[in-house]
């Protein structure tokens, strides 16, 4: 019995999740249009270029957060439908690997989604940005993706073990990811240079994003096995 280590399990789980997503194309066909629609709706509702440019950063992250809920729900739906998650656990598969794998798959989807949203945002809201601004935005996206992915998969697992309840996930996750929302928004605003913010103002926020991701990544690794069992 040469079963795999954590890394191997993570890799195969991530590939499996991404393959399922590719089959269904739920993120591409439903989540992405939903998120883009949210942003267009804001453009209509605010109807002022000046306001839009100031709030562009926040809008991108708000849309990303809502999409996280959908992506995580989708990710667990495939595991819970026929009891596959239970089987994985019963078969003694390394649950830390499963946690990392599911997180990785969610993060890949989330990151691609963000790329599109950022582009949409820049076109719709007519935002200008310097080269170093783009650099900061990229780092911010990575940090926020890590945090949102870990938290989403961890809390999703908590309710997946108890028969999935769709409405519960936002209630649980929203207060937890508030720091990500704040930090990513501020970092993005510094990247754009909204209301006198400079690039230097953004780095502490980027730091928060990575600290957050680190804490919840570790928390997830330590508790996921027990989380799924319950």
């Amino acid at each position: 019995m040469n079963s795999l280590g954590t890394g191997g399990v993570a890799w195969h789980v991530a590939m499996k999740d991404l393959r399922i997503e590719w089959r269904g194309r739920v993120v591409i066909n439903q989540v992405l249009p939903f998120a883009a629609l949210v942003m267009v709706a804001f453009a209509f509702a605010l109807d002022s270029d000046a306001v839009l440019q100031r709030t562009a950063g926040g809008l991108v992250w708000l849309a990303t957060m809502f999409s996280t809920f959908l992506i995580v729900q989708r990710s667990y739906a495939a595991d819970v439908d026929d009891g596959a998650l239970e089987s994985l656990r019963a078969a003694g598969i390394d649950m830390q690997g499963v946690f990392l794998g599911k997180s990785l798959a969610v993060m890949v989807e989330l990151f691609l989604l963000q790329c599109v949203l950022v582009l949409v945002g820049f076109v719709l809201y007519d935002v200008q940005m310097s080269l170093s601004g783009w650099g900061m935005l990229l780092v911010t996206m990575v940090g926020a993706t890590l945090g949102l992915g870990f938290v989403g998969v961890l809390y999703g697992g908590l309710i997946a073990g108890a028969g999935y309840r769709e409405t519960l996930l936002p209630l649980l996750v929203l207060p937890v990811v508030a720091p990500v929302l704040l930090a990513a928004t501020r970092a993005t605003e510094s990247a754009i240079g909204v209301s006198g913010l400079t690039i230097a103002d953004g780095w502490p926020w980027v730091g928060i994003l990575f600290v957050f991701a680190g804490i919840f990544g570790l928390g997830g690794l330590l508790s996921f096995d027990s989380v799924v069992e319950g």
Partner: protein
Amino acid sequence: MSAVIELHDVVALYGSHPALAGATLRVNRGEIIVVRGPNGAGKSSLLRLCAGLVAPSRGTAVVLDHDLSVDRDRVGKRVGLLGQRNGLFLDLSAAENVQFWGQLSGASAAEMSEAMQRMGITNSLATRRVGSMSTGQRKRVALACLVTRRAELWLLDEPHSGLDASGRDELDEVLRQAANAGATIVLASHESERAERLGARVVSMSGGQVVS
């Protein structure tokens, strides 16, 4: 013959209710055994205990040389439990499901295709989405996953339910082959005529005990 399952006077609780109330059972390697009994007799609990999912709160339980009261976490790797649900990914094809489980347990590509062959999952069936398959076909995919995982002990909870007559015969054939190949199989069932066809030993459960 060496024992794969050795239970002596095992008590296991579901909440405060004793799901097993002093069960004693010995199963040898390569054996097929049918556990018969009415609903609530403790058949499922017996299987879950042997899979390491439930802790024995009294008595001795040794499965595949693991003492369940000490290291029940390690039994799961060597045991295949198939309950009411198959644990498959419905959006993936049969081959992809087998591949996923095979890769997790380090099986080679040859082993995976052999496992599918043994379960009669060939060409067109192999590439079909599991979600669009019949109950019997799904069972076969799930069993193929057990084979690729090289599960030494198969614990099957009512595997015949939901299958038509030919599906049942097919399943029996598959199980016989698996036993010949060295797997030990414990089936929970409330019908007994399958046992004869399988050439299996039959034990009965009642009130959380193995009565015969």
